[in-house]
C-alpha cells in the first residue's frame, strides 16, 4: 500500500508531514486531504490564524500529486444599501 504524506500550508507557514499514512490508492488519500484541509481551515479561519490553507499530498519523497486549496473570502458590504422590509 502506498504511503502518502500531507503537507499543510497555513498562509506561508509550512507544517511538513514526516510520518505519512497508508492508503490503498490516491482516492483514499484525496478524501483524507479533503477532510484534513476543511477541518484545519475551519479552525485557522475562526481563530484568525490564516485565510488560506493548502494541503499538498505526496507519495513518500516525490513531488506532490494532489493539492487542495481552501481560501477564506470575507466581503464587508457598504452599509448604505437600501434595506427592504417585506
Amino acid at each position, binding site marked *: 500500500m502506498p504511503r502518502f504524506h*500531507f503537507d*499543510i500550508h497555513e498562509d506561508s507557514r509550512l*507544517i511538513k*508531514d514526516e*510520518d505519512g*499514512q497508508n492508503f490503498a490508492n490516491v482516492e483514499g488519500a484525496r478524501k*483524507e486531504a479533503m*477532510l*484534513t484541509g476543511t*477541518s*484545519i481551515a475551519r*479552525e485557522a479561519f*475562526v*481563530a484568525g490564524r490564516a485565510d488560506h490553507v493548502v*494541503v499538498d499530498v505526496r507519495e513518500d519523497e516525490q513531488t506532490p500529486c494532489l493539492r487542495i486549496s481552501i481560501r477564506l473570502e470575507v466581503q464587508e458590504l457598504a452599509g448604505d444599501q437600501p434595506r427592504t422590509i417585506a
Partner: protein
Amino acid sequence: MPSDTIRAALIQRLRVSSAIADEDVKEIEALPISVRQYPSERAVVRDGERASECCLIVDGFCARSKTIASGRRQILSLQIPGEIPDLMSLFLHVMDHDLTTLTPATLGFISHDNLRKLHRRSPRVAEMFWRDTLIDSAMFREWIVNVGQRPAPARLAHVMIELRERLRLIGRVDGDSFEMPLTQEQIGEALGITAVHANRVIKQVRQEGVVEFSRGRVTVLDEQKFQELADFDGRYLHQSPTL
C-alpha cells in the same frame, strides 16, 4: 496473578470515589475473576455481540468506539485500570459499540451470573456499580460537548486532563507526566479529526509550550496554560462520594 493485584485499582478507585465500606471490599475480593492477556488493538467485545461477562481492566488501556458505514471510527472513551467499561452489558444485552484494547492488556472477566448474585447479596455494591455507570454517562456528556463545541487544541487538552485526573485516582500520575498510549490516528478518532489534523494540533500545543506528547506519554510544560486551554471543570467525574 495474586488476587489483590487483580482488584487493586478497582478497589482504590471505589475507596476514593464512593467510599466503599470494608465489608463490601471483602465481597469484591471474593468475586471470581478469570484473567486473560490481550494484545494491543484487539476487540474485547464487539458492537452487536451478546456478552455473558463484564471486563475489569487490570492493566493496560482500552477504548470504547463506534464505526460508521464509511469506516470512520469515533473513539467514545478511554478506559484505564480499575474500570469495568462494559458494566452496562449486565442489563443491555446486545453491545451497541466496540470495546478494544489500545495497548497489551491484562483483563479480568466477571460472569454476569456472579455479578447478579453479588448485587442481590450486597445492594450497596449494586448501588456503587450503578453510580459507576452514571459517571460513565456524565463522561459521555462531556465528550459530546468537547467534540461538538471546542476547537481542536482545547479538545486535545480536555481529553488529556480528564485522563490524568482518572489516572491520578489509581496513583498513575508521575509528577508532570502520565501515560496516554494513543497513536496520532487514535487521537484523531477521539477528537473527531483526521490523523494529519491531530498531528498539527499536537505540534501546536508543543510550540505554544503547553504540553509535550511523545511515545505515548504526556508531559505538562505549563499547568496554567493547560487548564486554560482545556476549559476543564472536573466536577463531572464525581471523584468523591459527596460529588
